[in-house]
């Protein structure tokens, strides 16, 4: 474990830039903490935090100068691996038909700065979707292969987080090149740094950092333990899958369907949701293009087949969403589709909370099936 002083943080970022990475990190914009290009520490939301509750998000000043004193916002890293909009192919007419061409990949090597433990797990989950099926998403594969991940262990839980119960956080376990823990003592501000890959070790070697002392490692562990103990929400996954199978035709969905606006916010902010649709576009010069865009199972057209949508009611769409996340994801990809990041709770305009809905389904199941 190495020690990186707050004053030296830019040395880390510069080292990554020198190796050829474009830096992406948290920035403050439009009243929220988003992910975008950064050049150095000055672009980070230094001394800011986010207050989150179901249906609520607010940026606030902290009483310290923490670099990572907030949790996750409406963006997730998936936008850099699986962009919201990408061209599948472009097409051009020829004398005897047409030709199709795939676009070149952007070829940018990105270093993601400040990836939380739940987000690392979300990346692993999307890897299974796009890289482990019978068909590879080759564009995803190429972007993924060029990634450098700087994880940050959380020292404070957000208002809607429940990663501890999903066993994904608040401490990162693998999947990163470097992992940092920020420590703010009365008179000291530093990070403990741990390499998780040969690439990460190489960067650490370049920086030639001192070892962290035993006391410093303890302080970092205490920060993470604090985050874990602060977590206000939890989702009980014990026996959840068979339970959800039992309640598929239950009444509860109607109740949540009454409140849900079918706005698709929850799926767009979710770091694991992978659904996409395609749109064919014809250009004025006769050329054509096929675009692939994020889509949502809450969209009315999502389940459209000739004659109408299969899932007409909001209740049926909510059932698809929740059971996909917490049940059929296990069948499809061998893990939960929810990492407990809390985004869907925060960004739901009416504050629907997946942890509460799962708990309510447990109650409904007990009432219906236990007598």
């Amino acid at each position, binding site marked *: 474990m190495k020690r990186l002083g707050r004053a030296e943080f830019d040395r880390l970022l510069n080292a990554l830039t020198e190796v050829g990475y474009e830096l992406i990190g948290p920035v403050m914009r439009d009243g929220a903490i988003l992910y975008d290009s950064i050049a150095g520490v000055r672009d980070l939301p230094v001394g800011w935090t986010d207050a989150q509750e179901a249906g609520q998000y607010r940026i606030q000043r902290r009483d310290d100068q923490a670099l990572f004193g907030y949790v996750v916002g409406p963006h997730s890293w998936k936008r850099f691996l699986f962009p919201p909009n990408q061209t599948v192919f472009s097409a051009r007419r020829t004398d005897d*038909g047409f030709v199709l061409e795939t676009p070149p990949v952007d070829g940018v090597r990105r270093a993601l700065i400040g990836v939380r433990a739940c987000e690392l797990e979300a990346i692993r989950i999307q890897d299974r979707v796009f890289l482990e099926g019978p068909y590879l998403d080759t564009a995803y594969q190429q972007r993924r292969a060029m990634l450098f991940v700087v994880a940050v262990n959380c020292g404070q839980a957000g208002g809607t987080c429940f990663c501890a119960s999903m066993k994904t956080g608040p401490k990162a376990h693998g999947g990163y090149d470097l992992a940092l823990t920020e420590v703010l003592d009365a008179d000291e501000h530093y990070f403990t740094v741990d390499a998780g890959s040969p690439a990460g070790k190489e960067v650490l070697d370049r920086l030639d950092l001192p070892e962290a002392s035993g006391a410093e490692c303890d302080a970092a562990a205490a920060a993470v333990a604090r985050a874990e103990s602060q977590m206000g929400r939890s989702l009980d996954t014990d026996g959840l899958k068979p339970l959800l199978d039992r309640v598929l035709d239950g009444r509860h969905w109607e109740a949540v369907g009454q409140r849900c606006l079918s706005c698709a916010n929850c799926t767009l902010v979710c770091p694991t949701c992978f659904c996409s649709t395609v749109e064919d576009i014809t250009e004025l010069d006769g050329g054509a293009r096929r675009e692939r865009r994020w*889509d949502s199972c809450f969209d009315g057209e999502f389940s459209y087949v000739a004659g109408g949508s299969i899932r007409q009611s909001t209740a049926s769409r909510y059932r698809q969403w929740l059971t996909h996340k917490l049940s059929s994801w296990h069948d499809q990809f061998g893990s939960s589709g929810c990492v407990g990041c809390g985004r869907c709770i925060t960004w739901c305009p009416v504050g629907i909370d997946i942890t509460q809905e799962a708990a309510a389904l447990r109650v409904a199941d007990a009432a219906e099936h236990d007598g």
Partner: protein
Amino acid sequence: MHTPTVEAAAALEPLLPQRYRVTRRCQELADTFSLELAPVDSPLACCGPGQFNMLYVYGVGEVPISLSGHSQDGVGLIHTVRVVGPVTQAMSGLEAGDMVGVRGPFGAPWPLAEAEGRDLVFAAGGLGLAPLRLAIEHVLDNRGRFGSVCVAFGARSPELILFRNILERWRARFDVSVDVTVDCAGADWAGKVGVVTRLLERDDYEPVETCALICGPEVMMRYSAKTLLDRGVPAAQIFLSMERSMKCAVGYCGHCQFGPGFVCKDGPVYSHADIGRLLELSEF
């Protein structure tokens, strides 16, 4: 700053269609036509009965269509399509010489090897006969490997009877029984009137020894399966072909999700034992 780039490698290949040319177009019914397609570049892997391809019409869109036959030389594909919306409408305007894009083959085929030695019941509703055609022909070409064979086909009205010539050809054989019914007809229709499930209430198959392949609208499949189950055909021997929205066919657009799986890769052919319960759920 130096930003390394990788070679402009072909991105998203699984989503890139291969070019095929229409070699023949045949109007089957007022709103249904067949296209015979030959590869322009290298041909795709062999597509089997029950599998489907994604057919792309330049600038309009791409839709899943089951294989309904092979051309004489065995390389070309035959797809039978009903006009229901923008893409199928545009496809209907294609003629011999026009180009389309094809991706595939996708999905699980009909379990013809497993069905060997059993009595076979084919139940088709409307256009559902197209994805079953190759399976029926396979069974008739290898007739000795199967027990009794019956084909039950239902159309909404006599004008909507698909593949009349082919049905006649099958009917002319002594070793298969072909039964056709229509939902409603005028006085000039001498055949049966009623739903296709009625045709399954017959004694020339031994239920426990029967394998049933069903394709048609979801309600038709549900009721046909119910009739067969009631007569004692085991759920694991009843197969149906599901239709769901499909945007990728390669398992990652999410549109075709059906409970635990994806219709594009786990289906479209499923055994009733696997999905019977899901079929009972509304809006699933």
